[in-house]
């Protein structure tokens, strides 16, 4: 930033001494804008790029609903809630699978076990993955207090946080 500041100072200084040079003015604007973008992007090189209603995980490429559903849903209604969600001018939201949901967990944190940028209750969240056994009546869910994955009977009601492909990711069959 120091170097850029010096360059700008020099350009502005020379403008007062000499004639106003259009190209100098333009290039100084260019340098200024690029330095602003550079410093902004430096903050985004973390795991998460946050917007008003969504959070994009640059590690997985997934875009997440920032604020989960206000009221809990059972598993079937959770699927429907995400399919019908329209957020950040996108409508291709869906309920995350268990692997995607667990990619949000930060196991170095506790109650909630998730990055501080993401508003989250230390409660259970549904995934779209069913337990692959005909003797079970459950689907996979994640308890965000400590990040444990838990089988929960599908008729029970829990929180829902939707996801979309974002940068890259799952594609509908």
């Amino acid at each position: 930033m120091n170097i850029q500041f010096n360059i700008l100072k020099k350009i502005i200084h020379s403008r007062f001494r000499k004639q106003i040079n259009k190209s100098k003015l333009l290039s100084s604007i260019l340098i200024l804008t690029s330095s602003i973008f550079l410093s902004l992007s430096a903050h985004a090189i973390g795991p998460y790029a946050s917007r008003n209603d969504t959070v994009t995980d640059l590690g997985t490429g997934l875009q997440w609903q920032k604020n989960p559903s206000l009221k809990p849903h059972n598993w079937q209604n959770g699927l429907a809630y995400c399919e019908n969600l329209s957020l950040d001018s996108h409508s291709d939201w869906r309920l995350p699978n268990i692997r995607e949901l667990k990619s949000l967990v930060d196991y170095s944190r506790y109650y909630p076990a998730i990055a501080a940028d993401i508003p989250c209750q230390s409660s259970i969240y549904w995934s779209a993955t069913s337990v692959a056994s005909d003797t079970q009546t459950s689907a996979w869910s994640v308890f965000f207090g400590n990040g444990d994955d838990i089988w929960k009977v599908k008729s029970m009601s829990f929180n829902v946080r939707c996801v979309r492909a974002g940068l890259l990711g799952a594609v509908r069959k």
Partner: protein
Amino acid sequence: MLKSKTDPSEPLLVSLACFLSFFLILYKMILGLCQNKPATIHGYQIYIDHHVAIYSLIYLVFAPAVEIIKIQNKDIDEMKPTKFRIQMIKDNGGRYIPQLWLIPFVTIMLITPPSGSFAEWLPLPDTGQTACYDANNLVIPCPSAGTPLFGQDAQYNGATPDYVDNTNQTITDLQSGLIWTRSGKGLQFTWQDAISYCDELVFANQSDWRLPGKFELESIVDYGKFFPASNKIFGCEGSFYWSSTAHMGNSEYAWSVFCNDGADHWVHKSNKYYVRCVRTGP
């Protein structure tokens, strides 16, 4: 004495081009940077070192600016030009065109669409679930869009896992780049001993084995399978496998994965469980 007769449009154009290309490569590079994977440009896999990436980003933004200052405020003499630059200035009728070498580079960047996959977990491996289930968890034909129960795991695809059996009791996951030891020695350890076992392991001519983190250990879980809940080539000794991830809530506990159903459990570090070591390829 050479005096620079600058054409202001030239450095400005180069500056503009650099400015534009900066945004295009930023997208590729940041993703690649985070995950240490090669970027794909026109089918060629280009491995970008952290330092190269950061310096080229800085250079693309700063270099045009520095050159503009040089040629507009100083005589060529003050720039202490190299032989090559003097020749270049002479060839261009006394004009100094900065950063000529950038033009092909910038052109390549400009015409390259942002594409390819660079990150270790980008996209995440698919869960493996292929069947659809109803609200009572009975298998049903997958519902169509707009009908109830649509939007299940099986209706969206992630990246299909790609395993190679190296036939030396190790398995390579081509997607994550991780190399796993096949389970089946029947050895069980406490958590601390499991960490040192993998650290000290010399196996398949390699010595950089380590105990996998929880996320790595779960990356081979196949949620479409049950008993065991992973591809059979990994082996499953019917119980818990240690991860190196400690449980934050209680320092006496660490995370493990039960290989038969794929679920994680936080268990006491003094318990003895199985071990699957991992190393980062190649």
